[in-house]
């Protein structure tokens, strides 16, 4: 097709310039900020790498890293397992199965802040529905939001509620793309659904499985809304995830230089992840 250079650049330049201005420039600027001292929100001189030295000796940083890792590992494992299980259940020629697909996707776009807000009441210790239901099963009241361990689990559960649909939708799409003949062939050999799943279905969707893990890790690292509302990082610092620590340090305690340092480190930690995604997408998307 006839193309001209000017036309080609006119289509992409506005977006490229926009992203350069509001993402790439801040990314460069953050290195500058992280090596400067602030007072009343104004830059007050160069301090070299002292923020970085502080960073690696800061127990709140270590805590935030461990909290974030704990929550996202628990959440992602549960989301993958549950999402795959739900997709496998729905991928059947049963009547009214489409309704379940719709219901299972509902939490995906529910405003995380509103969900977290709602779960404060669901987790309510005295007479909240979570403890009431557990009570029926004979399980003693759980201090969902007031105990440091359970608070992390509570955050993870809300994350699981919100993000399992993400895994479910993608796994279902992958399962439905498997040709029916493969199942028929397998069925001649074994009648065990368990063995058919691991022998046929799972190998066929294994690349999707890896993709979902990558995408979930990418999103989960950003976790902020749920702990910021559900537990406000507490009790103590029990659910103070990394993004929340940046927010608190920079915009609550106005330690802008130090919060920038935390941002720089987060960026550096994300680079391998970005490279993995870029590498896998270079193959898929072309």
């Amino acid at each position, binding site marked *: *097709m006839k193309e001209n250079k000017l*036309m*080609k650049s006119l*289509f992409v330049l*506005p*977006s490229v310039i*926009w992203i350069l201005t*509001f*993402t790439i*420039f801040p*990314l460069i*600027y*953050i290195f500058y900020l992280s090596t400067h001292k602030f007072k009343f*929100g104004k830059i007050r001189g160069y301090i070299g790498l002292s923020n970085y030295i502080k960073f690696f000796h800061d127990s709140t940083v270590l805590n935030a890293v461990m909290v974030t890792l704990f929550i996202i590992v628990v959440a992602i494992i549960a989301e993958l397992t549950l999402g795959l299980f*739900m997709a496998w*259940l729905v991928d*059947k020629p*049963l009547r009214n199965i489409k309704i*379940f697909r*719709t*219901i*299972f*996707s*509902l939490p*995906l*776009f*529910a*405003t995380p*802040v*509103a969900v977290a*807000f*709602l779960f*404060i*009441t*669901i987790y*309510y210790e005295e007479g909240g*529905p979570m403890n009431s239901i557990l009570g029926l099963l004979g399980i003693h009241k759980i201090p969902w939001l007031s105990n440091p361990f359970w608070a992390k689990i509570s955050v993870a559960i809300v994350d699981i509620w919100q993000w399992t*649909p993400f895994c479910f939708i*993608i796994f279902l799409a992958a399962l439905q793309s498997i040709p029916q003949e493969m*199942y028929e062939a397998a069925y001649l050999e074994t009648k065990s659904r368990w063995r058919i799943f691991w022998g046929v279905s799972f190998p066929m969707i294994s690349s999707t499985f890896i993709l979902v893990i990558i995408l979930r890790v990418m999103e989960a690292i*950003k976790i*902020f*809304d749920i702990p*910021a*509302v559900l537990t406000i990082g507490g009790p103590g610092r029990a659910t103070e995830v990394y993004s929340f620590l940046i*927010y608190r340090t920079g915009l609550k305690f106005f330690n*802008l230089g130090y*919060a*920038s340092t935390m*941002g720089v480190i987060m*960026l550096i930690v*994300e680079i391998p992840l*970005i490279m993995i*995604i870029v590498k*896998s*997408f*270079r193959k*898929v*998307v*072309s």
Partner: protein
Amino acid sequence: MKATSTEKIIVYTVLIVLALWALFPFYWAFVNSIKVPSQIFAKSWIPIVQFKPTLHNWQIELKTPLVLKAMKNSTIVAVVSTLVALILGTMVGFALSVFNYRGAFKNVDIYIFFLTQRILAPAVVLIPLYIIMKNLHLLDTVWALIIVNITFNIPMAVVIMREMFKSIPKEIMEAALVDGASWGKIFSNVAIPLAAPGLVATSMIIFSYVWNEFLFALSFSFTKAATLPVIVAGTQQNRGIEFWYVGTRALLVMILPVIFSLLVQRYLVKGLTFGAVKE
């Protein structure tokens, strides 16, 4: 492979349990929003049969100036950000699907550039953007929120619209080109109408993301530009936990994106996986 009837019963039972899990928070919010305070701990679940529903909470909520202001802010931010991100991203999506970029930045490189922006954790750029907005005197205005939301949603539009345009047969555009149409004309008069359903779905997805956005809304708005999620988050400190009120407010915020998510089902897989999984 035919399922036996016992198997069917097991499958449906498990499906129903899982459906209850997915639906419970919505139902909980709804039930509490139509209860008067004294009924909250009564463990009653069925309106009319077990308790007399009331619209009182909703009436109060929709008359609260703070909420009305936040609804207005949320709407302005979401509509403007969606429009701009959609226009900019759709142009890129179109260009990537019809042009061949050569030299240092090929099609795939341009695509990756936008993808990388999407991978990045927003908290990384929180502080520099805060200082930039402060220097531009945009803090606590809807403009600060509009700017960041456009930035973080351009990639979504690029990803979905590129897929949409790729599915349009090349011959249609070639025919228009032979007739002497410019690329600008082909984009606006040929490609856009053909991709309209995708465009509508993309706008709903972006709208929902912007509507739900919290980190920047919390950081860049204080009173004048506060959006609904900011108001909700602030409630906890101000009023403690009043169940009826939590239910009303939570539903009010999430109803729109939840409805949108039902309408865009067909496009979700493409959008969520950046086009890596095809349905």
